[in-house]
């Protein structure tokens, strides 16, 4: 990642950006986010297959944003998140520069978000084989079996909201669960509160989730909550020709076609 480090240094030295968000070696063989504000710190930047945290979660974090223009080390999932965030007016060319890393681990710098979008659009979002298998398995179950599966999986959730915190798309200052007038979702962690929280999370991410698995990776209990958003992704493919983040906006769930097909409305 010599190129990345070199470019990060230049960007800081020339004051093109105030902070470069990247990965550094963490503790116990983990990697973690690094915020480079001084050129000499750029030497700590690194990249390898362990760098799976979706750094796009930081571009909407108040304390990071307040630093000024950002550059972000972006793998394909991060780029997708950035495009989705841009289409929701959370970032733009004036406050964000993308230092891309291709799926082949090559450094690639983008001049603007349109170039990022073009790059991103070369790839479709595909659900990995293991999860695909899990989805198929669940779909073959009876509703009662699925109900049992999800109650079993979701009941251990203690609602730490790590899934929400790690998700780049969960940037709302006040999440639905934080509303108490009305109290949409019960605050305590119990069967009902957990079930409703996870259903709500999934539906709010439908048409926005780029399938980076940040939520699953963040979960301290490894609850397979990403299956919910993966299912929505599959459905989007089935009903609306798939989902691909786009600067043009026109989100899956905020648009419609007069000839959308369904088979359940009487």
């Amino acid at each position, binding site marked *: 990642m010599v190129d990345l480090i070199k470019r990060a240094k230049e960007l800081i030295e020339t004051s093109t950006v105030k902070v470069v968000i990247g990965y550094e070696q963490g503790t116990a063989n983990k990697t973690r986010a690094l915020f480079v504000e001084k050129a000499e710190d750029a030497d700590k930047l690194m990249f390898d297959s362990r760098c799976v945290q979706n750094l796009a979660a930081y571009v909407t974090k108040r304390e990071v944003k307040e630093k000024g223009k950002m550059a972000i080390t972006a793998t394909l999932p991060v780029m997708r998140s950035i495009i989705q965030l841009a289409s929701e007016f959370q970032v733009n060319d004036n406050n964000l520069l993308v230092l891309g890393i291709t799926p082949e681990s090559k450094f690639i710098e983008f001049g603007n978000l349109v170039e990022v979008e073009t790059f991103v659009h070369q790839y479709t979002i595909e659900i990995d084989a293991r999860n695909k298998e899990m989805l198929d398995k*669940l*779909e073959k179950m009876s*509703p*009662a*079996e*699925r*109900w*049992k*599966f*999800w*109650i079993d999986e979701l009941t251990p959730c203690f609602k730490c909201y790590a899934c929400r915190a790690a998700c780049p798309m969960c940037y709302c200052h006040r999440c*639905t669960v934080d509303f108490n007038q009305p109290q*949409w*979702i*019960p605050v305590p962690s*119990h*069967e*009902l509160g957990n*079930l*409703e929280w*996870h*259903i*709500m999370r*999934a*539906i709010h991410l*439908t*048409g926005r989730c780029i399938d980076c698995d940040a939520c699953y990776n963040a979960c301290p209990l490894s609850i397979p909550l990403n299956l*919910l958003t993966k*299912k*929505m992704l599959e*459905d*989007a493919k089935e*009903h*609306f020709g798939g989902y691909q983040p786009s600067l043009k906006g026109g989100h*899956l*769930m*905020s*648009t*419609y*076609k*007069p000839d*959308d097909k*369904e088979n*359940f*409305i*009487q």
Partner: protein
Amino acid sequence: MAEFEPKIVAFVCNWCTYAGADLTGTSRIKYASNVRIIRFPCTGRIDYMLLLKAFDEGADGIIVSGCHPNDCHYTSGNFHARRRWIMFRSLCDFTGIDTERIKFSWVSAAEGAKWADIVNATVTSIRELGPYTDYKKVAKYPEKEVSHG
């Protein structure tokens, strides 16, 4: 034991289905009295969460109904709603929520008879399904002591 009377909550739009239900009444068409109607400006306003809240509070079935496509008072509210229902219904089904208990329909202001049919059919099918004990068990959390862990 008395026969099970399902509780049905109907989320309907002001302009078509509510007016349609009104017509059912003024036309003196009799239909099942199990339904509690909640009027919304538009089906586009019906939040996902409202459906879950209805089950929380003990509904056994839900009817969601609005204007036919192209008839929305606000031009496209029902188109938006339709798209959301497609996804939300699938998500509910995926989590094991009984989607047989959520009926979607288009009922115009002129379709008083259709409204009666929808309600009657829903009541009949929910009566067959029985009370929604799965959800109630989960929602009635306070009834049982919290177990450790």
